[in-house]
């Protein structure tokens, strides 16, 4: 038995300690993929609800299995590569679109640090895949890579609409990267460090959440994030009425689904970001007073974080089906003429606040 | 107003006149022209007391002024006049009003710039003759080029650009070498005396080694030979003359050519007497070839101005002969011949200008029997031709005869060959005169009008000068007597030293004396 | 404080190779934009050396200078591409061989 126990012990130890980073990565990625599937379903259900109609309810009880059905459909569909397309780029584009969304999650902390003894050994557990000291900057950097997928996709499919879609999306994403960056700078000013964990720790009490200390920053960040993920008010790149499918007109089956997955993961990451930066991430107000055991506290923190992210996802979907699309010049106008100055103003105010108070 | 300041005034008066000209509006061509004439006349009248007060029997520099110009490098504004330059100085002031008056009707466009160029040119020329500082000399030497270039380049004939460019580049090549020599002298002077100065007087009593003298002599001589122009370097002259406007070629022949010979005397002889002795045979050869070559080529010219240009080459050949014969008589003859050539060939160009203004062609074949319609002109033109070919009683004869008489003593062979030149001088001039003036009156020339008041007013002073020098030359020779004697005596002393040095001049080997 | 097992000159060689490539790109390519890219490549090679030396000398200036280089590169690209676009508008070409006269 002990032999069996020791084997189990060494295996778990090995699993928990040595492989912990890899374990975390595996868990989170899968969690994300599942969330994406749920999100597609949610999207269609809520949009239907908003438009006072039923959503998909045929597959499985209440349509729960709809995403699986879509997944399989995408999977089975014939993978057509149109003749006039630049083959290599055409295939490369969806992959490139996926990468940034997933990679950003590595930095987002969804729980506090926990040290629990396992098998008489103290093991500290960090609920964050990689705690980079450049943290937030890493996010900005990777966010800017998001553009490539769209551009390359748009260009590779060699048709007017996709080309225009690609161009528009690149212009939009670049212009809105700036306000997002400025908002983050303001948050960093307050937190005093680039590490995301420090930012969350900085938002210790309810009143300290950045949403209250940084209302303007919060709004800017949210709008910018909407633009980054090409969500509705800003979804010019694949506006059906004008550009048919935008950058993924020529795409079908798996490559199209890759784009969709990329978009939704991007949405989830964005929501997570908003919650970590402005709503104190895994911070549960008054958690310490409850005196729960560490594991329970951690679970509670993870749940709080999930709740906040979910809330924002709903906001995304909600906004999508209510606000009309911006015209292109309005888009640019807001981005450069309105958001940028506000961002600068916000930094100045926060800097003054930090320096003198 | 003592003399030295008058000298400065006279030299820079034309330049000031040019400045005032700037104020006069371009459209007032009549005012511009009369102002130019007035300034040059005043300059001439002011230069007369200079000529009279010049003391003939002292060889030293007179009316000198010495001021610091660029003390850093030791260049001083050192000017003065002696026997060599007084005649040429007054000649310049004498010719300028005539040149300006002659271009009264022929210059129609850009009159103001023309007058400015002429006046500045006059100042530059006067400056050349009086400057005793090498850099000052070089400055005036170059300053003279630009207005001349403009005169030929802007108001010239058809191939004026080519001619002007050739003229400037030719002279520049020479004068650049001269500048190198000046700088060398400057350093040499510094090594010996320690003082930095370009002053001619200081450099004069430097002991320059013979080999250095050779090279320096050649550098200076090339610049002046091109200017003279001596035989191989003369091809720019006919082009410049043919393309230059009347006034331009009058000045070019009247004064510019004399700068070469004046320079040879002022710099080559005084600074490098040994080298002068060493190169005498070469220059005599070139001079004599110049005489014959000039005469022969002039004989077959079809264009009058080119003919007169080549005649200048021949006359200058005489002057070179006179200078290098190294006797007081021949030297004085040479200097006087410089003035004579200035007057007579200047007058020739004026005359040619007059018929050019009427017929707008210089081809001799186009003319014939002009005397019938222009008797007064033919009389003047005859007198000028006779003075140019050296008829006794006119100025040409006195200069030429003195040169030949003086140089026979030292170099009989060269003199005989040179005397052959006077035959050809008569040949080409009178042959041209016959073809233009005599013979049946051709149809085209019937409509020619005779000289008007202006043109006669230009001719009279020239004719008077021709007869004055012809009949009573001692007014001029007296001025140059002492300076020439001093010059030759100094050169002979230097030659004596050279013999001690053991280097015999190559002439003796050549002639087997 | 361990030492990196890679000696400094590895990085220098790498930078040299990249720089050489950049130069080749500038010389042989006849498309203005690609020339631009090659220049970017050369700049990055230089950045690499900066960072390498900064690490070796344990001095922060290397990094500072990298930023300066980036600033310059960014400015250059902005203006350069603006020029290329302007030329394209006028001459319909980005081909360097056609853009050889200062004034058309």
């Amino acid at each position, binding site marked *: 038995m002990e032999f069996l126990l020791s084997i189990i012990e060494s295996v778990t130890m090995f699993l928990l300690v040595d492989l912990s980073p890899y374990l975390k990565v595996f868990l989170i990625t899968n969690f994300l993929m599942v969330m994406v599937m749920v999100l597609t379903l949610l999207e269609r259900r809520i949009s239907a609800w908003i438009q006072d109609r039923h959503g998909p309810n045929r597959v499985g009880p209440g349509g729960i299995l709809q995403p699986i059905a879509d997944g399989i459909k995408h999977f089975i569909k014939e993978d057509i590569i149109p003749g006039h397309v630049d083959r290599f780029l055409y295939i490369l584009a969806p992959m490139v679109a996926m990468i940034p969304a997933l990679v950003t999650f590595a930095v987002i902390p969804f729980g506090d640090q926990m040290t629990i003894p396992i098998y008489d050994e103290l093991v500290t557990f960090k609920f964050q895949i990689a705690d980079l000291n450049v943290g937030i900057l890493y996010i900005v950097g990777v966010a800017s890579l998001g553009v490539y997928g769209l551009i390359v996709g748009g260009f590779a499919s060699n048709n007017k609409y996709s080309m225009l879609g690609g161009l528009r999306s690149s212009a939009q994403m670049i212009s809105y990267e700036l306000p997002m960056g400025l908002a983050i700078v303001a948050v960093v000013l307050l937190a005093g460090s680039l590490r995301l964990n420090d930012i969350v720790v900085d938002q210790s009490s309810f009143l300290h959440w950045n949403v209250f200390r940084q209302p303007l920053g919060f709004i800017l960040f949210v709008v910018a994030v909407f633009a980054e993920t090409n969500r509705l008010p800003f979804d010019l790149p694949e506006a059906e009425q004008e550009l048919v499918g935008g950058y993924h007109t020529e795409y079908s089956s798996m490559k199209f689904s890759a784009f969709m997955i990329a978009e939704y993961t991007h949405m989830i990451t964005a929501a997570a970001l908003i919650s970590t930066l402005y709503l104190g991430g895994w911070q549960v107000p008054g958690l310490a007073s409850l005196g729960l055991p560490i594991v329970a506290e951690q679970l509670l923190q993870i749940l709080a974080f999930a709740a906040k992210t979910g809330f924002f996802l709903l906001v995304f979907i909600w906004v999508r089906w209510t606000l009309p699309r911006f015209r292109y010049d309005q888009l640019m106008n807001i981005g450069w003429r309105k958001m940028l100055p506000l961002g600068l103003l916000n930094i100045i105010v926060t800097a003054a606040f930090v320096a003198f108070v | 107003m003592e003399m030295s300041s008058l000298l400065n005034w006279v030299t820079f008066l034309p330049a000031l006149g040019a400045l005032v000209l700037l104020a006069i509006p371009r459209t007032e061509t009549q005012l511009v022209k009369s102002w130019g004439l007035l300034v040059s006349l005043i300059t001439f009248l002011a230069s007369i007391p200079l000529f009279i007060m010049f003391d003939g029997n002292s060889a030293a520099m007179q009316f000198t002024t010495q001021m610091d110009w660029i003390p850093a490098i030791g260049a001083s504004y050192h000017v003065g006049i002696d026997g060599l330059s007084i005649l040429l100085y007054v000649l310049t002031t004498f010719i300028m009003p005539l040149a300006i008056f002659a271009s009264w009707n022929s210059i129609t466009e850009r009159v103001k710039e023309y007058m400015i160029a002429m006046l500045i040119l006059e100042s530059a020329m006067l400056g050349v003759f009086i400057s005793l500082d090498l850099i000052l000399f070089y400055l005036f030497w170059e300053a003279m080029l630009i207005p001349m270039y403009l005169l030929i380049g802007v108001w010239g004939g058809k191939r004026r650009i080519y001619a002007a460019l*050739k003229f400037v580049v030719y002279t520049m090549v020479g004068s650049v070498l001269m500048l190198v020599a000046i700088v060398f002298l400057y350093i040499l002077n510094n090594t010996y005396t320690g003082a930095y100065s370009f002053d001619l007087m200081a450099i004069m009593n430097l002991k320059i080694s013979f080999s250095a003298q050779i090279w320096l002599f050649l550098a200076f001589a090339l610049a002046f030979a091109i200017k003279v122009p001596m035989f*191989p370097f*003369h*091809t*720019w002259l006919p082009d410049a003359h043919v393309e230059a406007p009347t006034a331009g070629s009058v000045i070019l022949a009247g004064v510019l050519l004399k700068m070469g010979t004046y320079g040879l005397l002022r710099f080559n002889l005084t600074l490098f007497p040994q080298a002068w002795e060493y190169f005498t045979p070469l220059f005599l050869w070139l001079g004599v070839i110049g005489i014959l*070559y000039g005469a*022969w*080529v002039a*004989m*077959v010219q079809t264009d009058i101005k080119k003919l007169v240009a080549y005649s200048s080459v021949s006359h200058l050949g005489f002057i070179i002969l006179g200078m290098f014969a190294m*006797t*007081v*008589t*021949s*030297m*004085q003859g040479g200097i*006087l011949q410089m003035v004579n050539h200035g007057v007579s060939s200047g007058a020739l160009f004026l005359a040619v200008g007059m018929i050019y203004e009427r017929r707008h062609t210089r081809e001799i074949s186009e003319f014939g*029997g002009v*005397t*019938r319609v222009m*008797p007064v002109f033919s009389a003047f033109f005859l007198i000028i031709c*006779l003075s140019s070919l050296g*008829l*006794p009683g006119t100025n040409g*004869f*006195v200069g030429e005869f*003195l040169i*030949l*008489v*003086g140089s*026979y*003593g030292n170099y*009989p062979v060269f*003199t*005989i060959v040179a*005397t*052959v030149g*006077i*035959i050809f001088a*008569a040949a080409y001039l*009178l042959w041209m005169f*016959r073809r233009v003036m*005599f*013979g*049946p009156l051709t149809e085209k020339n019937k409509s020619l009008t005779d000289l008007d008041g202006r043109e006669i007013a230009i001719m009279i002073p020239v004719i008077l000068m021709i007869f004055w020098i012809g*009949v*009573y*030359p*001692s007014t001029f*020779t007296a001025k140059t*007597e002492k300076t*020439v*004697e001093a010059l030759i005596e100094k050169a002979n002393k230097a030659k004596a030293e050279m013999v001690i040095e053991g280097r015999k001049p190559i002439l003796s080997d050549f002639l087997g004396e | 404080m361990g030492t990196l097992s890679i000696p400094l000159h590895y990085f220098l060689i790498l930078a040299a190779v990249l720089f050489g490539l950049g*130069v080749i790109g500038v*010389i042989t390519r*006849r498309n203005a934009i690609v*020339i631009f890219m090659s220049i970017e490549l050369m700049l990055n090679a230089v950045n690499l050396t900066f960072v390498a030396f900064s690490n070796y000398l344990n001095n922060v200036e290397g990094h500072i200078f990298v930023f300066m280089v980036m600033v310059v590169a960014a400015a250059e690209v902005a203006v350069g591409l603006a020029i290329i676009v302007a030329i394209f508008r006028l001459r319909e070409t980005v081909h*360097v061989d056609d853009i*050889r*006269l200062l004034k058309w």
Partner: protein
Amino acid sequence: MHDFIWIIPLMPLLGAIINGLFGHILKGKAGFIASVAVLISFLYTVRAFFIVMDGTIIHNELFTWIQAGDFTAGAAVLVDQLSIVMMLVVTGVGFLIHVYSNGYMHGDRTVGKFFSYLNLFLFSMLMLVMGDNLLLLYLGWEGVGVCSYLLIGYFYEKESASKAGLKAFLANRVGDFGFAIGIFIIFSTIGTITYAGIEGQVDKLMAAGVVTSAALLLFMGACGKSAQFPLYIWLPDAMEGPTPVSALIHAATMVTAGVYMVARLSFLFVRSDVAMMVIVIIGTFTALFAATMALVNNDIKRVLAYSTISQLGYMFIGVGVGAFAAGVFHLMTHAFFKALLFLGAGAVMHSLADETDIRKMGNLYGKIKITALTFIMAWLAISGIPPFSGFFSKDEILAHAFLYSPLVWVFGAIGAFLTAFYMSRLVFLTFFGESRVEPEVEKHIHENPPVMTIPLMVLAVLSVVGGLIGIPAGLAYLWGGENHFANFLSPVFANAASYSEPHHISHALEYGLMAASILIALGGIYLAYLMYIKKAMDPDAIANRFSGAYKVLSNKYYVDEGVEAGILNPIVRFSQWLWHFVDTRVIDGFVNSAGKIVWLLSLIARRVQTGYVQHYASVMVVGVILILAYYIFR
């Protein structure tokens, strides 16, 4: 003292200036003013003559003309026996010709210009003869040259006239070349050019061994001026000018300048036997040569021109053999009768509407009696018929020539015979025989106006009487038994005489020679009489028999063409070559090629600037590589 002497040359100068400036206004009166000016100077010359007669030589310096270094030439005047004789001839004959020209040039458009040139000529001639140094002689020399140029080319509208003028001037100029070199030699050896100075130091010249060369060169000048053998070509063409000009310049005064020069520098010439011999040879040759050409010439003025050349030849013989006085005497007499002949010819032409060809004349004796008579007197004088002046002067020369060498006398005699013949031919053809004048011209042949005939008469008297003052000693028993003219000039030639041994002609020899010369003259006339009056021998027949000789003679020995082809054309062609080849191609070639080379080099250099930025980049890279390579492989 004797400042009045300056009036003599200055009066004609003044006349020349007045006529020159106001000629076109004066019109008719110009001739009068000119003649008056010459008359005044003639009167003063006579006054000077009386002063010189009683032995005083006038020497007066006005101012120093040229003074440079050791060369000085004063504007000074020396009037001694020789120059006073010349002055008398010049002003006397000059005045007569001026009067004559009034008539002759009547109605000419620019008569003012003509008289101003004539006066200017007289001024130059007077300066020539009155100057006290070689330079003034040279001044006069060239002055008369120019005036002859102007006067020959007076009818400038005629191409041939202006050409002749130029030819005359250039020929003179060639002579002046020799003259100038002569002066240089003299000056460079003895340092002075006044006659007195040269006379004083002539032995220094002898010592320096330059006497012969100086003399010969001076003689070359004389040949140029007096139209002796090599340089005579201009005189026949000089006939293009108006006749009074020919009379004054080409008969009486200018051409004699050469003789005057040799006479004036007798002490120099005598000292070099070679020079004297050369003068004699050239003199005799020219005399004969010109005479032969005169035989066949049919132009009245050209015949007289050749006769002048021939007579000048005689004068040079006289001077060459040492008989300077005889030479000058012949000069004087020749001036009288040759001037008369020319003026006569002028008169004939005037009345025959400028017809000069003697074959179209004849039987004019009756119509223009005075001209004919005076012409005949001059004819007899020139032929050497006693008692006319020509006989005495020519005979004097032949006598002395005989002493020098009988051969010379023989040639001289032949010359005299030919002279007699062609002069008689001329006279017979113009005045006697049947009239070959065209009818319409014949109608209005009229006697010339008195203003022309009076000078003819005066000259006729002079030609007759002129000979008496120089009667040779032998015949001179009436006048104190010696040759007055020779004595008068003896002081001038004293130095020369003292140097060479005196000739003494025995009276017997003299009479013999005289007889011989009379016979020769009569023979010449009789032969002409036979041929042209009696038609015994038909001149044309003779011409055909000796057709070869005749053609050569009539073409003046092809000398003109020879000179043209031999000298003028080669020079012109050589100059053309010089100009086109040497000047433009060689020298200008160098100059322009310098420019072109620079241009070519720059062509190569230009190709480096291709405009491709990449090329510049690659060059830069290569540069960097080289620098690095240097550091590595250093």
